């Protein structure tokens, strides 16, 4: 992602990013015509990444020096074997593909993006639950 969009989204937390993505999917807004797909994909991916980063920052900050692929690889050792985590990893991959511009790519559909959105929310919940016991200590 570009540094400009990162700066723009950093102020929002992961959940807010997903809400923004959902609004894009719900609204038939002329302003976002043509770009809503890629924007929503970007927002959802950003939210997943943010949750993943948050998790590592709290649990093992040193993992953050690894590539995103390796951050996913290490996740089961700290989060356990959770389907929500695997689904989020897959969604992150698919969304990363979608965010890259390819001239032949027709992009994700609204339905597909909604499915990714649901996956992302489930992942956020899984991460939040995993971090809750530690939050106090």
């Amino acid at each position, binding site marked *: 992602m570009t540094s400009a969009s990162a700066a723009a989204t950093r102020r929002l937390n992961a959940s807010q990013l997903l809400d923004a993505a959902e609004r894009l999917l719900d609204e038939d807004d002329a302003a976002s015509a043509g770009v809503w797909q890629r924007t929503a994909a970007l927002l959802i991916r950003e939210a997943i990444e943010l949750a993943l980063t948050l998790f590592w920052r709290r649990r*093992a900050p*040193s*993992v953050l*020096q*690894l590539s995103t692929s*390796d951050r996913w*690889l*290490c996740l*089961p*050792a*700290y989060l356990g*074997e959770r389907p929500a985590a*695997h*689904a989020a*990893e*897959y*969604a992150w*991959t*698919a969304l990363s*593909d979608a965010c890259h511009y390819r001239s032949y790519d027709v992009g*994700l*559909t*609204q*339905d*597909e*993006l*909604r*499915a*990714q959105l649901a996956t992302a929310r489930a992942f956020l919940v899984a991460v939040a639950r995993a971090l809750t016991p530690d939050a106090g200590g």
Partner: protein
Amino acid sequence: MDQVVRKLLLERVRASALGDEAVALIVAACAEGERGAIDAAPEPIWLRSIAVEGFRGIGPSATLALEPRPGLTLVVGRNGSGKSSFAEGLELLTTGTLKRWAKRPKAWTQAWQCLHYDGPTRISATFLRSGTDEPLALTQTWDRGAAHDAPTSRRAASAWDAALTSFRPFLSYAELATMFDTLTSLYDALSPVLGLGDVDDLLAALGRERLAMAKRAAESKDAARGLADALDDTDARQLALAAALRAPKRNLDAIAELAKPRAGRVDAGASATALRRLTALAAPEPQAVADAFADLRAATAIHAETAATDAARASQLADLLRAALRLRDHGRPADDCPVCGAADALDAAWERHASEAAEALDEQAAALRNATRSLAACRATLAGLFDATARDAGALAAAAGLENAAVDLDGVLEDEAAALAAAAALARLRERASDELDRRDSAWQERAAATAVWLEDARAVAGQAASLRAHKAAETWLKTVADELRAERFSPIADQAIANWRQLRQGSNVELHDIALRRQGRGGRADFDVRADGEPANALGVMSQGELLALSVSVFLPRAALDESPFRFAVIDDPVQAMDPAKVDGLARVLHAAAATRQLIVFTHDDRLPEAVRRLHLAASVLQVDRRARSSVAIRVSPSAVRRHLDDAKRVAANGDMPLDVRARIVPTLCRTAVEARCAELVRERAARTGVGVDDVERRLRGARTLRQALALALFDDVERVRDLGQMLNGAELSLVKLLNGGAHGGIAGDESVRRLPAQAIELVHGLAA
């Protein structure tokens, strides 16, 4: 007949309100079905390898080696890599043709051999027979240029051939796309696997029998009409029989009575009566006629002779002379003539003369009278030859229906020739009448005999009326029960298909509520209860091509998973082709779930499916197919999940940039995952080999919650035997297991021990396989 269906049928028929005969029909048909099923149901087989040479995209021999056990294998290759040639090679070898070629122009089946290869085509496959160590190998070769259906050496027939039509373990892209072209094709694909084809056959057999009986009854009716039509309505016996035969409700006993061949039984009809009178006709003998005419002629001649003198005048003259004689006075010698007055004319001489003359005249008169009488007698005799019956002959003949039988009696009393002709005609008529009576009698006998034959059949037909009713009742009952069974047997498949569809459809607005198989005429159709945005909709109308494809896969997988199928493998060719990218993870999950009990081999042309499988951490083997020049096809085995986890473990362990405490947590987890994955492989392998517990492998694997339990399951097939692990593992291995188990919870200290862990895990994994 499918044993399950047979049992269900028998249970239901015994509990039904059907009549005894209808029940007996179904029970007998089920027994028939049981005999046919003895050599059915061969043991399950797993696929071990496919070797293809000189076929389509494959030139020199290439072998696809597979793990004969439950699990998902992805065969990945770009379009044109030759990967589909393996799938199609197997299909051609086992079924003798390709579904893709069906209903295609001939050009599709030409050039089916590899264009870059001069040698013969050779396709072979080996299978593992569950529960035995005996492999099953099938090989077939074709000469260069041979037609696909004319191999040089045909593969041996196998016990699984029969099941290929019902449980076709192939789903090619062409089939995926055309499964819903007609709703009947899905019904046809599913009906045999539910064992309902047998019920349909049973229904058809009952229908055939009923039709045969109905046909026989109709034929009997037609035969009665034919018999009646052939009967001669001039014969009263036949007329009565015909009426009985034509009656709307035929009384067979009455007909039997009417047709009874009894002696002396005559035809009481007018025509027969006339005939019988004619047979009693007195036709004069020619001699009698000739004699009568001779007498007549003689009498006529005498009469004519005597009639020359006037008899009356002679008598009168004799009377006159006698009167004169009486008048003469004998006292006188002569008297005068009282008539002319001549004197003394009446003297002695005259007296003498007059007496003689009077006598002569009397004689003359008597002769004439005799002649007349005689002539009359002759005429009477002649007339007597042609009696009243003879005179009626013409009318009788007409009444009897004899044609050209008029007898001309004109002049028979005058003309001998005419009389002779008439006598001959009468004699002929009498003979004809007699012949006609004989003919009618024999015709009657014949008809009566024919009727007797018909009666026998008619009684049989009447006897099967009850059977016909029983057939109809059995058929109606079976139709209803077949529908119920179809629904019941199909519902698990439908449920699974719907569950699959939910996984696959993701955000699609099309909801699948129900799939129902319905019988329609001789065939059937599959109906899809589909809602688009909550509104009932036509399944095929609202679904995109990709969705239809997903639906095909949804339905195919539960079919392949049926226990009745002897094929423990299923081959799906390119299900992702027309699928939306975001649905691929759903497909990966559905395929992975189906692979819990089946060996699923999925050919795919891009990396989306393997990627989804890797990212979702689903167990699967991935084979890469690529084709070089001259159609030389190579297969590379992508690192297995076990391998990948171990490689990742090695990489992370050696990564000095990562803090030790993190590595000490991640490396054991990865190693443990690898060992657990290997244990799962071993458990699945054993289940496939022995045929025991294939269907609950997944449940048992889930039951192994710890690494030690997974090892116990892999080594002893018993999750409880964790204490016995020492029998199979050495001390180093046991302490490794302990490390891996506790690793995630921070049991490892020291960089060196973390770095050593992957190598130790590799050894353990290898040791398990031995």
